C-alpha cells in the first residue's frame, strides 16, 4: 500500500559541494568518543570506570532514570577519559581503540517468536534503544510507552544531506529485521516516507505503510510526514527513527553484534572532493576529512547537515545520529553596505534586491554569517511560505518565548521538533534562534506536563 504526499510549501537550499556517490573506507580512528550532548535531556550514569577495557557493544553508561537503557561503546579499547564540565556533568567519553576490535555478543531474539517484552529488552541491552526517538519532545523514547505509530523518513531533502537511497543500498535485510522487531512494539502502523519515483531500499519491504513524498525541503523531515499522515495529539506518543540507524538496529538483531559502522556523506563547499566514507559512530572527523582535502583554513565543521547539525571541529567526533558531515566557510567578516547592495551570491526567500529567485537551480556557497543582527519579530507571512505543517509558526514561537503552556499545547508544540523550524530559522529576517526557542519550549512542556 502506498499513498502520495505532495508538499508545496518549502525551500530547497542548493549548496555547492554535494557528496559524489562513491564510498571510501576511512582510516580507522585512534580515539572514539560519545558526546552526551547528542542525547538531549539524558541523565547518564556511568557503568565502567576510567581505565577500563571495553569491547564494541559493551555498555559504557546507562540512563539514570531507566537503568535498563544502555549506551554502548562504538570501539574496543581502553576508556581513557570521561570529560566533565560544570557541576561534574559528563560531556563526552573517550575510548582509545585497540588495533584489533573485539565485539561483545548478545543472544538475538528469534523475531518470529519473540514478544514485545523480549524485543524491548534486547534493544535496551544491546545499546540500540537510543536510536528510537519519540515525539512529543524529540528525545529518546521511553521504553514503557506504547506508541500509536512509528515514523521513518527515507527521503532526503536537507541541504547536502546523505542520499539515503545510496547509503542504504543492499541493506534491505537489516532494514526488514528492524521493521519486524519494531512492529512488535506498536499496535499501530510503521509509516515510511520515500521519495516519489526514487528507487528506495524500502520499496520491497514488508510490514510498512509507504508514502510517496515529493516536494521541496522540509518534505523529507519526519515531522512533515507525521503532520501529513497522522498528527500527534496531546497524550499520544509516536516514535521516529532515521533509516541509517535502522540498519545498525537490524544488523544487531540479526547477528547479536552491535556494529556502529555507517556510511557518512562528507559534503560542503570547503571539501575538495566531497564523497561518502565508511566509518563508525564516534570516529574522529579528521580521519576522513583530510582524505578529501580541505580548501580553506577558516572553516566550520558541522556534525549533521547545515540546517540542524551541531558545531564541531576537525578533531571532533562523528555524532551518534549523524549521517552527514558538512564543512562550510566561516563568515566572520564584515561586508560593506551588506544591507543595501544587491545580492547575487546568497539565498533569499524574498526579492528585496536579492536575486536567488531568478535561478532556483543555482548552487550557492553560503558561509556562517548571520547576514544581519538579531531583532524582534517584525515581518509576517514569510515563514508560512516554507512551513508545510498545519501550525502557525510565528505564534507558536512567541508562545514558547513567553512560556504560555496552554497556548503552546493548543498551537501544536506536541507535534514538532526543533528541526521542523530549521527552515523558518534560515529565512528569518529578524534572525531569531527558532530551533533553540522550540527546544526550550519543549523542555518546559516536558518538565511541567511530562
Amino acid at each position, binding site marked *: 500500500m502506498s499513498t502520495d504526499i505532495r508538499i508545496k510549501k518549502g525551500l530547497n537550499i542548493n*549548496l555547492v559541494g554535494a557528496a559524489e556517490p562513491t564510498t571510501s573506507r576511512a582510516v580507522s580512528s585512534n580515539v572514539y568518543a560519545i558526546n552526551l550532548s547528542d542525547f538531549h535531556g539524558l541523565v547518564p550514569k556511568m557503568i565502567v570506570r576510567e581505565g577500563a577495557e571495553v569491547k564494541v557493544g559493551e555498555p559504557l553508561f546507562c540512563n539514570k532514570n531507566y537503568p535498563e537503557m544502555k549506551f554502548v561503546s562504538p570501539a574496543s579499547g581502553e576508556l581513557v577519559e570521561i570529560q566533565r564540565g560544570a557541576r561534574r556533568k559528563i560531556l563526552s567519553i573517550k575510548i582509545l581503540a585497540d588495533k584489533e576490535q573485539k565485539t561483545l555478543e548478545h543472544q538475538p531474539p528469534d523475531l518470529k517468536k519473540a514478544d514485545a517484552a523480549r524485543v524491548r529488552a534486547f534493544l535496551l541491552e544491546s545499546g540500540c534503544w537510543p536510536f528510537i526517538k519519540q515525539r512529543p519532545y524529540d528525545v529518546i523514547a521511553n521504553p514503557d510507552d506504547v506508541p500509536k505509530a512509528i515514523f521513518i523518513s527515507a527521503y532526503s531533502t536537507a541541504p547536502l544531506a546523505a542520499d539515503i537511497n545510496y547509503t542504504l543500498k543492499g541493506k534491505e535485510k537489516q532494514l526488514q529485521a528492524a521493521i519486524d522487531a519494531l512492529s512488535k512494539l506498536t499496535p499501530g502502523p510503521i509509516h515510511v516516507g520515500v521519495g516519489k519515483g526514487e528507487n528506495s531500499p524500502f520499496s520491497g519491504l514488508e510490514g510498512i505503510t509507504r508514502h510517496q513524498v515529493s516536494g521541496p525541503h522540509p518534505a523529507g523531515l519526519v515531522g512533515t510526514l507525521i503532520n501529513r499522515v497522522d498528527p500527534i495529539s496531546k497524550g499520544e*506518543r509516536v516514535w521516529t527513527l532515521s533509516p541509517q540507524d535502522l540498519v545498525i538496529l537490524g544488523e544487531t538483531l540479526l547477528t547479536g553484534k552491535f556494529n556502529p559502522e555507517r556510511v557518512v556523506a562528507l559534503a560542503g563547499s570547503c571539501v575538495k572532493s566531497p564523497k561518502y566514507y565508511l566509518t563508525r559512530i564516534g570516529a574522529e572527523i579528521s580521519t576522513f576529512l583530510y582524505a578529501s582535502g580541505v580548501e580553506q583554513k577558516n572553516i566550520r565543521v558541522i556534525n549533521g547537515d547545515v540546517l540542524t547539525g551541531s558545531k564541531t571541529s576537525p578533531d571532533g567526533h562523528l555524532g551518534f545520529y549523524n549521517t552527514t558531515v558538512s564543512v562550510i566557510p566561516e563568515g566572520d567578516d564584515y561586508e560593506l553596505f551588506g544591507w543595501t547592495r544587491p545580492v547575487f551570491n*546568497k539565498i533569499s526567500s524574498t526579492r528585496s534586491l536579492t536575486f536567488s529567485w531568478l535561478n532556483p537551480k543555482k548552487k550557492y556557497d553560503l558561509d*556562517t554569517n548571520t547576514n544581519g543582527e538579531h*531583532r524582534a519579530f517584525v*515581518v*509576517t507571512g514569510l515563514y508560512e511560505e516554507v512551513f508545510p505543517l498545519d501550525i502557525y509558526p510565528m505564534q507558536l514561537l512567541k508562545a514558547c518565548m513567553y512560556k504560555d503552556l496552554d497556548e503552546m499545547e493548543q498551537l501544536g508544540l506536541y507535534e514538532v521538533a526543533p528541526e521542523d523550524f530549521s527552515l523558518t530559522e534560515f529565512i528569518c529576517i529578524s534572525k531569531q534562534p527558532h530551533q533553540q526557542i522550540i527546544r526550550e519550549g519543549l523542555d518546559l512542556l516536558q518538565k511541567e506536563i511530562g
Partner: protein
Amino acid sequence: MSENKLTLKKRLHEIKHRLKGKKIAPAFGAFHTFLYTPDETTHSGSHVRAADDLKRTMNMVILALLPVLLFSFFNTGYQHFAAIDAASGAPRTLDLFGNFLTWENFWLGFVQVMPLVIISYAVGLGVEFIFAIIKGHEVEEGYLVTGMLVPLIIPVDTPLWMLVVAVVFGVVIGKEVFGGTGMNILNPALTIRAFLFFAYPTWMSGDKVWVHGAVDRAGTPDAISGETVLGYLAQNNTFEYSTADMFFGFIPGSVGETSAFLILLGGLFMIFSKIASWRIMVSAVLGSLAMGLIFNWVVDLGWVGESSRFYGLMSFEYWKHLIAGGLAFGIVYMATDPVTGSQTHRGKWIYGFLIGFLSVMIRVFNPAYPEGVFLAILLMNVFAPTIDHYVIRANVKKRLKRFKTATVYPQATDDKAEQLKAETV
C-alpha cells in the same frame, strides 16, 4: 583603495570591541552596522542564514517611497504657483514638461519638504538612540520607514516645532513604551499624524494648509488657497480637477499622498519583492470599493437628496475614492505595516477589507475628518490581534477535535493498565 578600506574596517572593529558593554555601544553599533554588515556568525540552530535582514527589508520600503517623495517636491512647487496664478485670476493649465517638472517647482518643494524629512528623522532617531542607550539594546530599524512616512502624510506648511512635539510623542507613546520595534500596537507614523490632527486641528484641515504659503498669506491681498478634492466634496462643491489629475497626483493634499499612480507603482514593487502583504492591499481596495458602491447605490435609490450634506461625498463615484485623499497611500504604506497589522493570512483579508470599508465610511459621514483612512487604520491596528485570535482559534479547534479521538495506549509495564486492557478486550 582596498588597503584603505581594510584599515577602516579594522579600525571600526577595534572600536567596537573597545566599546563592548559600554552604554554608548548601541549608538556606535547603529552607525557601524549601517556601514558594514556585522561579522556575527551563527551559534545555534541553522548554520547558514538567508540574505535578508531587517535593514534590507526597511530599505525596500524606503526605496518604494522615494518616487513619491521626489514627486512631492515638484507638486509642492506646482501647487504653490498654480494657486498664485488662480488668485490673480489666470488659472494655469497643467503642462507636464512646461510648468510641472521645472527647476523652480522642484527647488521650492525641496526647500519646504526636506526640513520636514530631516526633522522627522533627526528627532525620531534621536529618541530611538536615547532609548537604545538607556535600555542597552540595539538601535532598531523601524524608524527608518516611519521617519520617511511622517513628512509625506502631513500638510506641507506644518510648523517644524509641531512636528518635533508630534514625533517625540509618537515614538515614545506609540512605540518605545511597548518595547520598541516589533512590539508596538499602533502604527507610529499614524500615531504622529493623529497627534497632530487632534492637537493642532486648524493646521491639519481647511483650505489653507494644503498649499505652501496659503497660511502666511491669509488675510493679505496676496491670499491664496487650495482645497483638496475631499474638501470640495465635503462642502458639496464642484472641483476642476480631472480624473487624470487625481490619478497622477497634480492636486493639493498632504505632501506625498497625491499621486495614486506612483503609490501604485510603489505598492507593486513591494508586492513583487514580498516586503508588503498583497492580501492587505487587495482586500483594502475591495473594502473601499464595496463601501463606495453602497453609497452610490443609496444615492441612486434616491434616499439621499442633493440637499443632504453627505450628497457630495456619497455621490462621488465609488472607485474615485481610491485616487482622492490619502486612501491609496494609507493602504499601500501604512495598512501593510506587519507589526501593527494582522499576522495571519486569513486575518489579513479581514483586516484589509475593514480598513478600506471604514476609511470610506468615515470620510463620507464625518466631513470634519475627510482623511478617514488614518483613523480607520489606527482602529484596525487595535482590532488586528482580535482578528488573529479568532483566525488562530479555528486551527486550535481542529487540534482539540483531534484530541478527542487521540490514540493513547497504556504503558507497557503498567500492571494496572495491563489489567484494564485485559478486562476491556
